[in-house]
């Protein structure tokens, strides 16, 4: 340890402390409330008299958590796959081909990104009514996949551009066709990009609120954010220890995955911003 770096570290942490405290405060509230015995929930003390782990068990039954968890997993996994399957070829085309309408397509994607679901929500609702798929989680899955295309293409493209064309050209020289080169040379190199994009799409779908709130009508089809929201909205008594336990269970796995992967995301986004 050198003392100059030690002093710098102290100053850095001091400057960051307000934001770190503000970022951690809701987590602290969530964890502490989730572990308070139900009789102590309404007293705003920091330390519960004992850790009430049973809250998680009672929450599971009381909040229909398992069903919402299943729906969330189903929607998020399928939306991620769907979005990747259409985004990978598009990103490849934008990176490796110079074609008429390329700029138009980029801007079209940009517009889909700008027009977030909330602006279109009335129109989307009408579309789903017309198709007869209100309260259908498959319809929600398709909408999630579609709204993630712009971001996925952007991320993938920024990574794809860093893969040298030489490698593919070398394979063509050897007589491999374009398709074979794609599968044998390009895609294996692009795996990290696809993984990061998939995780980002998954988190987006996992956390989405407006579309689910509008298109899903019955408890059976609720995803986690809507299920948990339904526990606090329009009720006279809210079982906050259950709500916080549910929030905790829905949040922590995703937050850990994110913490682990955020440096890749940071790199990808930075690349994307420079492109």
């Amino acid at each position, binding site marked *: 340890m050198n003392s100059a770096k030690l002093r710098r570290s102290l100053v850095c942490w001091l400057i960051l402390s307000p934001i770190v405290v503000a970022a951690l405060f809701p987590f602290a509230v969530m964890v502490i409330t989730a572990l308070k015995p139900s009789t102590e929930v309404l007293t705003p003390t920091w330390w519960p008299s004992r850790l009430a782990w049973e809250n998680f068990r009672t929450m599971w039954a009381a909040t229909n958590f398992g069903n919402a968890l299943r729906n969330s997993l189903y929607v998020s996994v399928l939306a991620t796959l769907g979005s990747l399957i259409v985004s990978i070829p598009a990103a490849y085309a934008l990176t490796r081909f110079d074609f008429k309408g390329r700029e138009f397509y980029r801007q079209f994607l940009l517009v889909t990104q700008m027009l977030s679901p909330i602006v279109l929500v009335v*129109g989307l609702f009408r579309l789903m009514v017309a198709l007869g798929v209100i309260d259908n989680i498959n319809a929600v899955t398709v909408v999630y996949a*579609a709204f993630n295309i712009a971001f996925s293409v952007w991320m993938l493209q920024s990574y794809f551009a860093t893969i040298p064309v030489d490698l593919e050209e070398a394979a063509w020289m050897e007589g491999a066709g374009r398709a074979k080169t794609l599968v044998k040379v390009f895609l294996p190199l692009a795996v990290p990009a696809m993984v990061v994009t998939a995780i980002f799409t998954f988190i987006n779908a996992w956390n989405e609120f407006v579309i689910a709130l509008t298109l899903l009508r019955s408890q059976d089809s609720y995803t986690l954010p809507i299920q948990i929201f339904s526990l606090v909205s329009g009720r006279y008594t809210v079982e906050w220890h259950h709500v916080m336990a549910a929030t905790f269970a829905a949040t922590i796995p995703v937050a850990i995955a994110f913490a682990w992967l955020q440096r890749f995301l940071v790199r990808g986004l930075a690349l994307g911003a420079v492109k």
Partner: protein
Amino acid sequence: MTSKRVVAPYVLILPSFVLAALIVIWPVNELAQLASHSVNRFGQLRDFVGMANFRALLDDPNFIDALWRTGIWTIGVVGGAILCSVPVALVLNEDFYGRDLARVLVMLPWAVSLTMTAIVWRWALSGESGMLNSALMDFGIIDENIQWLAEARTAFPMQILIGILVTIPFTVTIILGGLASIPDDLYEAAALEGAGRWEQFRYITLPLIAPFLNIALVLNTIYVFNSFPIIWAMTQGGPANSTDILVTYLYKVGFRLGKLGEASAVSLVMFGILLVFTLIYVRLTASRGAKA
């Protein structure tokens, strides 16, 4: 590229185009229809009414209030986030003990859904049992409970603060990308010339991260302008519509009051404003592309 492959890119982009177009073009067309007709409660189109739905909005004081409040919300959150993010990114760009941990902690709010964040804060801000009040009392900052969400005077600023907190991670990320693109020897040269830290920041760092700040500014403006869950999950625009912004107003008019024509008109107004932001963004990225 040879002309033989000229079909390939179109085949490759087709599936993504079809899917993205489905959820944008159809709804936009639908919004245009609804906004220009009178619509009954069951969503059936009646007569063509031209601009009547838009005029109804202008006569609704709640719409005008929400429009203003959207401006305050957007400027407050985006401005606050950028002001906080620059120093945070500068610090995170330094080499210090525990930097990786610090990065994770600053980025963490990004991973949590806005709905969950809003629900946790709603509980933390509750007047009698909220832990923010008890924390502030413990530190002797306040001496009686504040009913944070019971009136707009405290609810809306708190929502803006939470908005800032959740916008910081993305903004820091973009700025860090900008900082990483600055070569170290620029600073070394400046230090040799006798430039102090502030001068280095003012004349090297700031101009070189300016394009990144611009992009963060425009993208955040679009995201924040459209942000629905924080306000909806905390107050649903209440009490008495006093925390409504355009998106929550739109949702209420459309799905609570069932006035689909007026709600569509709000959507189209937002669409127009967003289009302006988009054009600014395209301008910014295009001018950067030309420079590169």
